[in-house]
Every structure is written in structure tokens, then in C-alpha cells.
């Protein structure tokens, strides 16, 4: 099948796509043992799609790593198995902090800080060390949160997976410094220059598959503080007087279900999501308790190795 060159000039989505593919190929070529951190959210779904494009007709030459906090939405883990593992036939590594699970670490009793540290950051660091990964690709975008605006595309981490903002490598043109010593690792963010809207427009244009949680439908929810929490399974601890009710909601961002706020919405197709997004006055992360804990919470978590 042969089609001709698109007559129009390069659009911003074309430019961002090309840049991201360049970054993904650079990772494959310059590192011995890279991995894609696959969180099953929209950003890592876009990266997975870009990865298929970058190495077509070959398969992406690296495994996927999912840090399973055990509190993800069931639909996310289903999607991981059905799409990434079965349909695409990719190698998917699932890492769970078993010790944390045995100790019953959950977001209700431990606070989101300690919970995140035990069920996400720790197993992530362990998995990286265990498998000897020297590059870990993530879906971080610079528009998400203020400390991310200064994050590099190829972000250097020391042997303890720590990020030091004063010690970052300058990043020039599209020529990335990929040198590292044994034990050192780089985090790579191919979507650095994308905004939330870019991601959704791209998903719409490319018909990239992602979990249905992003589309509005009636779901059982409780109102907790300012957040609409979806009751995803029987482990959800209801407080006195709380009675789940069906509301038409969707998610702008996905994390652990007990700490991820949904938004009321009627957008049930990707096109409607895009439209809704250009009209909203609220930022993407308003539903994530983890960012609001205290000022600069994200920066501190990152210094300690959080993605």
C-alpha cells in the first residue's frame, strides 16, 4: 500500500510524534537494558503506541514494567493483560511490594505519602535494581506540575535512583547525553513537550487503545472531601454515612482508585473528551491527592526516586 506525502505542513502533533519516536529509538540504541514503565494510564498508552510506531515492523525491543500497587482499578490490570500482553505479545513484568501487601499497607490507614513510598517508590527502585535496567521510560510531561517544567528528557539518576535538580545535564538540540556507569540509570520522558490536550488529540487522531475509565459512564461513587471516589471493589472502606451512588463520571488521570478523583462528565467518546478538555477551567491533577499533600510534594518524592 502506498500513499502520498501529506500535503499540509507538519502539524504540532506530527512534530511531537517525530520527536518522541526519535527519543524512543535513541533509548533502544544507546542503552543495554531499557524498560518502559507502564502505568496503564493515557500517557503510557500513548508511549506504547509511539513505541509500536518507532520499531515497526519489529516489536518494541524492551519489556514493560508495571509497578502494581495492588490498589489499581481492576479495569486497568485487565487492560494490561488483554492488550499489552496478549494482543501485542509484549513481555510485561509486574512488580508488587509483597512485604507491603502482607503488612496490609493501604491508602486509608497509612496516608498517601507513606502508602506511595511503600507501594510505588520502593518496589520501583527494587525492580530497577533487580533487573539491572539502565534506562526507564516514563510518561511524565512538563506541563503536569511545576517542578516537572525543569525535568530533562533524559534525566540522570544516581545509583540510589535519586534526582538532583542542581546536577542535571544540559540538554542541547536533540543530541542526548546517554552515558552512564554501571548501576546508574536514566529516566526518559518522550512526552516531555506534550500537554494534556496534545495527548488527547493524539489519541483521537491515532485511535490509540486505552482503558475505558477515561470515558464517562455511570459508576458507583462516594463524595469524599472534594473528591469523587469510585468504589471499585469490596476493599473500599466506607465511612459512616457514606452510601455509594451511581453518577456519570470519568477520569482525567488514573492512579490508585481510593485516592484518584473522578470528574462528572458526559464525554463518552474520545472526541467528546477532547472537546471537554478545551473548555475546562480545571487542571488535570486537581483529582490527585498526592500532589496536594504539601507544597513541593512532588519535587521531594522525585528526589527520593518517585517517577
Amino acid at each position, binding site marked *: 500500500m*502506498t500513499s502520498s506525502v501529506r500535503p499540509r505542513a*507538519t502539524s504540532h502533533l506530527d512534530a511531537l510524534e517525530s520527536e518522541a519516536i526519535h527519543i524512543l529509538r535513541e533509548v533502544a540504541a544507546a542503552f543495554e537494558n531499557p524498560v518502559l514503565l507502564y502505568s496503564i494510564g493515557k500517557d503510557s498508552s500513548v508511549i506504547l503506541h509511539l513505541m*509500536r510506531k518507532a520499531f515497526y515492523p*519489529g516489536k518494541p525491543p524492551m519489556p514493560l514494567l508495571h509497578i502494581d500497587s495492588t490498589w489499581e482499578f481492576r479495569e486497568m490490570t485487565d487492560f494490561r493483560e488483554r492488550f499489552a500482553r496478549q494482543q501485542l505479545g509484549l513481555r510485561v513484568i509486574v512488580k508488587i511490594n509483597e512485604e507491603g501487601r502482607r503488612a496490609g499497607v493501604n491508602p486509608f490507614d497509612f496516608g498517601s505519602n507513606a502508602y506511595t513510598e511503600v507501594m510505588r517508590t520502593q518496589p520501583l527502585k527494587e525492580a530497577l535494581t533487580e533487573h539491572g535496567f539502565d534506562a526507564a521510560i516514563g510518561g511524565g510531561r512538563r506541563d503536569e506540575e511545576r517542578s516537572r517544567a525543569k525535568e530533562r528528557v533524559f534525566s540522570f539518576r544516581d545509583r540510589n535512583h535519586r534526582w538532583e535538580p542542581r546536577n542535571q545535564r544540559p540538554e542541547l538540540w536533540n543530541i542526548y547525553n546517554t552515558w552512564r*556507569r554501571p548501576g546508574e540509570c536514566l529516566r526518559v520522558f518522550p512526552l516531555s513537550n506534550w500537554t494534556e490536550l496534545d495527548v488527547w488529540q493524539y489519541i483521537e487522531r491515532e485511535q490509540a487503545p486505552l482503558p475505558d475509565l477515561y470515558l464517562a459512564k455511570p459508576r458507583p461513587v462516594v463524595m469524599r472531601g*472534594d473528591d469523587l471516589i469510585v468504589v471499585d471493589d469490596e476493599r473500599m472502606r466506607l465511612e459512616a454515612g457514606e452510601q455509594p451512588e451511581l453518577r456519570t463520571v470519568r477520569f482525567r488521570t488514573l492512579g490508585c482508585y481510593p485516592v484518584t478523583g473522578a470528574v462528572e462528565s458526559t464525554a463518552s467518546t474520545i472526541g467528546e473528551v477532547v472537546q471537554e478538555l478545551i473548555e475546562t*477551567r480545571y487542571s488535570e491533577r486537581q483529582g490527585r491527592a498526592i500532589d496536594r499533600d504539601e507544597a513541593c510534594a512532588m519535587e521531594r518524592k522525585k528526589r527520593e526516586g518517585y517517577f
Partner: protein
Amino acid sequence: MTSGTIAPALSTTAVRPVEKDLLRFITCGSVDDGKSTLIGRLMLDVGAVYSDQIAALQMESEKHGTNGGEIDTALLLDGLEDERQQGITIDVAYRYFATEKRKFIIADTPGHEQFTRNMATGASTADLAILLVDATKGVLTQTKRHAFIVSLLGIKHVILAVNKMDLVAYDEATFDAIRGDFKRFASKLDITDVRFVPLSARHGDNVAEPSARMHWYEDGSLLHQLETIYVGSDQNLRDFRFPVQWVNRPDNVFRGFSGTIASGSVRVGEEIVVLPSGKRSRVRSIVTMDGTLDEAAAPRSVTLTLEDEIDVTRGDYLCRPGNQPHVGRTGEAMLVWMSETPLNQGRPLWFKNAAGRAVCEVESIRYEVDVNTLHRKQSDTLRLNAIGRCSLSFHQPIAYDAYEKNRKTGAFILVDRITHETLAAGMFLDYGLSGDLAGSEPRFLPARRVQSPIDDSHRLQRYGHEPFTVLLTGLPASGKTTIAKHLEKRLFSRGAVGVLLDGESLRHGISKGLGFSKEERSENLRRGAEIAKLINDSGQFCIAAFCAPEESMRQQFCEIVGRHRVVHVHLDASVAACRLRDTTGRYLAADNGEIYGFPGVTAEYETPATPDLTIVTEELIDLEAAAGKLIERLASGICSGGGSVAVAKS
């Protein structure tokens, strides 16, 4: 309504989003020029800040703000904890916003002492620069520095934003004076498009909307300029350059070369050349997951397959045979030094460009640019934030273009091989052999010829022999160095004074950085000839051992040294004999294509037609016989001029 509900848009432009074009720009200004305020204002006015972020900003403005409780837009930008607590800005930050017409990426660089490094970083990916000037201060040294770096990094469009117009009563004359000042200065730089916008970032005049207080200004707001400026022509659409990033071999059938088209375009069926190997083929297909293409252009990332099974690896360039970049082992470049550790000349460093990596050395610093005066000064090192022009040599041939002609294939970084720190950003200058550069003015007055005060006859008396040069030529491993050494020993023991000059040894010093192309081999021999001439001029003998595979090169050698002084000795041995004798592995490497243009294997070796002497070294190198023959020859006199070369000092 809960905050979890999506509120209706403030703007009524609920149109379908479309794919837009992308403008990357950098903002530069000194500490108090109001840069953060301007960017914050711009983002606020175009609606790039969400309500919950504005609410947070309001709280912070009351706590840390400098605007008397009003929203301090500068606080939007200083994101890092250290920055907000200590009031410092650490590094380049990237911001994003979009209007109906365009998507924008801002590289926001701090104006502090590390500005050169940070600015170069931000400017490297930008199409346009906003230079901020304080209307109460006018064009400062700092403004000129910024403009110089912007020009050096190849940005063709500059908007001079004259801020704080509110503090000069929106006065047109003040603006005009600043505009005139900057225009005069910018004419010295390589910036093709300069625009001027008077504005007040604090009050929003001429930022997103035209100001009612500056009716005299009619060119539209800053945002209007950003939305309409045309940067498409900055792209190099002419020269097809495809750095191979990744060889895609999913199975035994498919073999494709993946990369991002750096410039130009390519069509199926077109002939291409692989650099640096020089092998040729044709494009069989342009593969993408969305289907194959007939043609693809920069900046697309694609996968190409070729008609022939030729060797192509990561780091190679695919180009058109009639339009190739320079390939060589030397280069001239501007460096922006980014490390606390100063440049140490001659130390091997990692080099990385669009295609791949190599080892390189900075051979010399031609000059350093004083960024305050733009004058050139002598320097033997480059320190943090210094900019200088340097000569580089590479341990393998590198393909590159001049940065001026191609921002993608003319750029590179240097990385420390031990610490892995990014040391410098580099931009290649127009190339030319041995550093003769097109378009650069001569730096010295024409050279004079200095006459020695010592008479030739006095030298003859002192040394007991006339000066002469023995030129030993032959295939690699034909015995040149071995015979040369033995001859030197014999001559030395007889009291003669002289120097042994070996073509290979020259490459460690005098010819460091020269490669093995025909031109570079010829240049190495030319340098050898000039040295032999100097040695002979001083009354001493010279034994010169060079492969010299071409007759014209040997002739040139004799002309430079003086025909009457040279005995040309050809060491005669077949390629097969030399290959057997070779212990250095070079023949093997040449067979495997690791060495480029190897005489007798992959390059022609012209047997000398009329050497002064031929010594056959096919079976063995009989040193005594060879040296004896040579000395006999020298003693019998060689010169057509009649005098004899008296080797013996009786």
C-alpha cells in the same frame, strides 16, 4: 457544583481543536527586566492557567508576592522549592501554551551568571528569541550578550520586547531610541529578522492585546507577533541528511534503517550514498506503521529500506551522491563551554552529534570571544560559560555540515569520558583542509622569509657532509621504517648529523588529526617535505619514510625539498609479501573495511617509474645490503648539479 465537575469555559470559542503548527521560542532578560512577569502574564492572558492554579497563585501572591496583594504572575514560574525559598532560578524551564493559531513551547532561561550555558541550551531548540529590555535602562551589555548568543546558536528571528513602558509614561521617543540602539548593534550579527514591541508586562499592555495607551505603535501585540511570524523558511529543505539511529532487523527478511530526517526530503527510488563508507544504493521503500510512503521530509522519523545489502550502521549518514556533507577527521567549531572544569587541550573526549559518537580532541583554541565586547582574544583554555573557536580532531572520519547551513548536522556536544558531564555545545564552521576557512579574515600579516645568518659552507665544515634527504617509499610493511632506522644508525656511527622522519610518527604530532583520504595523505607528505627542507637547510641529513602511493605526491615532495638533495629509494615488494610480513593487523583491517583507502588493498598504489634506487624486499629485508647500497649511492653523489654528497667523514 463540586470542584470535581468540569466548569463551562470562560472563553466562548468552543471550536473543534485543530492541528496547529509549533513555534519554539526562548526568552532572555536580566534579573529585573520582568521576564517571569511577562511569561506569567502571557500564559494567564491566553488562558493557559487553570482556575485551580489561579486560586493557588492568589494564595501564594499574598504570601510571597511583590505586587501588593495583586496576582504576582512571576510566581507561576519559579517552580522548584529552592527557587522559591531562596529566590533563585536554577535552570532552563519549559512552558507550554496554545492559542487558536499555534502551539508554543517556551524555553525560559534565567538571567543569572550561568546565563551563557543556560541560554545556549534553551536557544539550541528555538526558532525565535524574545529579548527583554527595561525601558528605563535601554540596551545594556547584557542585552548585547544575549543577542550574540542567540545569533551564534542560529536563531534567525528576534523580538526585542521593551518592557516597563508604564515607567516611562508610554513614551514613543524612548522606545524609538532603544530601537535605534539595538538595530545598530544587531547589524553586526547574523540575525535576519528583528522586531520591536513596547509593552508593560505588569499591566498587560501589548502583551496579548494591543495597548490603548500606545496608539503610536501599530504592529500588534507580542502575542500577535508570536502567532504570525513565519519561521518555515528556516528549515533546510534542500540537503537530504538522514542519520541512521537504529538498524531495524526484526527477522531474516526485513532490514531497515530508522532515523529522523534531519533536513531535506527523500523519495522512493532515489540514489543514496552511505557516509563515511561511500557505498551507494537506492531507496527501496519508506516504511511507517501507517503504511509505506512515496516521499518523506524533515522532521519526520521514518524507516528506510535499500535496494542492496550494503553495510549500514548506527552513526552513518544517508545522503544524495550529488549533495554530501563534509567527511573528515578534523573540524573547526565554535564551542560554548559548560563545565566548571576548564577545557584541557589534547585530552580525548566523547563527541556526539545527530548521527552518533566518536572520540575527539580539541587540538587548539584559535581565539576566545569576549561576550561583553565581542572582541577576539588569545586564550589557552575555555572556562565555564566561555565561547571560543577551536580546531578538533577525531579518531575516525566524521560527517558534518557547517552549522550555519544546517542546524541539525552541524551541531554536537562534548562529554567527559570519566565523569560523563556534558562539557560543551559545539557548532561546526565552514570546513576546509588544514583550517583554511572560507569567509574568515586573515588573522596575521603575510609571513616573512627569515634568512639564516650562517653560511652553508660553515655548516658543511661543521658537519663534514652536505645536507641530503633519503626518501624511502613503498607499500605498508615493505620495510621502510626498518631500513630507515638501520640507515640512521649507520650514518650516525659515521659521524653524520641528521633526523629520521617517519610518515606514521608525524601523525602523532605535526599531522595529528589528519585522516587517510587521498587529500589528507598528500597533506601529510607535504608537511613531511617542508620539515625535510628545514632540516636540510640547517645542514643536516633527513631520512624520510613515507608510503607515498602516488607519483604526483612523490614529485611534489622532491620539488619542495629540492630535487638535487633527494635520493628517492623505492622498496619493491608485492602486496602479498607485505601482507605476510605485516604484524600490525592493518591489512586485515583494510580487508574488513575498517580502514578507509588503504594503498594496495582499497586504494591504488602506483609503482614509481624512475626511482633513484630500487631495493627489492620481496623475500627478506637484508638490512646490511640495503644500507650499504644506499651509502654507496650517497657517497657517489646524486645531484645533477655536480657536487657530491660526502657521507664519510674520514
